[in-house]
């Protein structure tokens, strides 16, 4: 209990100071410097929070739509990324064949790709899922490949000494060894998936945080607090997705050095 307190206290102190500074800047711009559109630039936090609660239900509903699609995209991206990583790890030949396309895929700007995908699938949900997957497969794939490659020569030799077949070597050594890498990739990918889903929503959809974000941006200064609420809500979605991945990581790979209890046995 005490340890949690010790760890939480500094972060809370930081958060609090940041909020105070923000409020002061907001007040300064609005009341002292009297900047035009001061509240659009640095709004009062209490106003944003108030809006956040007033429209909580709407935000929750739209946010859920975004979250589900981003999550589905992340799953799809993870599957594709993991398969590509395994494929590339099979041989240098396979890597040389696949890797350039993986890199190339990241050169295509998503802003240009999203309308194309929508044009093909004609479904806003599927477009979000596909774009989220498209953005997330890359970090997942590269990090997992690195994880698989990080296997120690000794561990591999042990498998060779048992005359283990390739399937066993993957299943019992290379894949478990690649899991920490996979999760590193996933932690980068989780917030990206949310961003990708919102991006697609802003280009035309009926539901999702991105839709209200865009709407309130159009309506101008009168809706500034609502706009900021959507920004906060999408940040929260990204964080939630990240924490979810972190939780799964702890459950699946409790043996990682980062999770080891300090102070030896028992």
């Amino acid at each position, binding site marked *: 209990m005490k340890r949690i307190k010790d760890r939480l206290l500094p972060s809370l102190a930081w958060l609090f100071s940041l909020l105070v500074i923000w409020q002061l800047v907001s007040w300064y711009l609005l009341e002292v410097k009297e900047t035009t559109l001061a509240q659009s630039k640095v709004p009062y936090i209490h106003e944003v929070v108030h809006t956040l609660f007033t429209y909580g239900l709407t935000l929750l509903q739209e946010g859920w739509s975004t979250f589900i699609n981003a999550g589905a995209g992340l799953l799809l991206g993870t599957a594709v990324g993991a398969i590509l990583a395994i494929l590339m790890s099979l041989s240098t030949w396979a890597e040389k064949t696949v890797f350039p396309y993986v890199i190339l895929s990241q050169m295509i700007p998503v802003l240009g790709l999203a309308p194309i995908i929508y044009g093909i699938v004609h479904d806003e949900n599927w477009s979000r899922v596909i774009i989220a997957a498209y953005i997330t497969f890359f970090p997942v794939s590269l990090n997992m490949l690195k994880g698989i490659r990080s296997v120690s020569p000794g561990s591999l030799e042990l498998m060779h*000494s*048992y005359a283990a077949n390739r399937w066993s070597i993957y299943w019992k050594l290379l894949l478990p060894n690649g899991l920490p890498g996979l999760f590193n990739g996933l932690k980068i990918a989780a917030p990206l998936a949310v961003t990708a889903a919102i991006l697609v929503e802003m280009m035309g959809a009926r539901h999702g945080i991105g839709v209200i974000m865009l709407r309130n941006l159009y309506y101008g200064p009168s809706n500034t607090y609502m706009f900021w609420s959507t920004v906060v809500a999408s940040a929260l979605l990204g964080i939630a997705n990240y924490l979810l991945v972190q939780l799964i990581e702890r459950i699946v790979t409790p*043996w990682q050095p980062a999770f080891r209890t300090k102070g030896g046995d028992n």
Partner: protein
Amino acid sequence: MNPAGIEVKNVSMSYQSESSEVLAVKEVSLSIGKGEFVSLLGPSGCGKTTLLRMMADLLTPTNGSIEIAGQSTRQARLSQKYGIVFQNPTLYDWRKVKDNITLPLELKKVPKAERERKALELLELVGLEKFKDKYPWQLSGGMQQRIAIARALAMEPEILLMDEPFSALDEFSRERLNEELLAIWKKTNSTVVFVTHSISESVFLSDRVFVLSPHPGRLSAVVDITLPRPRTKEMRNSPEFYKLITQIRDSFEGS
């Protein structure tokens, strides 16, 4: 000549790197009988590990050949004749202690109940039954090495290759495990090639000791250990034991 054992014929091994070449083993010939317990003894860097890895088909000699019961080392490896204990424990982080021991059994598709039973038996043997559900990092270095030994024994291999398995242990556990190892060896009739740099350990355990000397690694003497079996604690203090130790020490100085 030696149909059932290990036959090392004029084996040399040099490691190549961009700039230089290290002759780790030079023209070693030796013959180990089936069921024999032999030690490879020598100072650090004399090529013990290299020689053992060549026997295990994890390394290919640059010259010469090694045969196991008339087969190539590759065939012997593929038919899983070896159990090997590396110089490092090489346990898998994501497996609990007991699951590390059962790894070779899983690969051989041994039924789960049988695997569990075997793991418990081996854990008891190495004195770590209380740690079966721990992860390797929760064990000390010496305990990890004992798990690695248990894992090698799990398959009941015909040939047991051990690379300084007890060097991370304290003197007490080491002597106890020496005796345990001999008991296991007697029970299983396996051939044991034991790498060590401890003279007394090699004398206590072996039928014969192959003494290697460094730069380049070569065989400098073969010493028959004439102590009767079974070996007992008391023998460690016998004049004969000391005589053999002196004899081996002299063979080092002679080289």
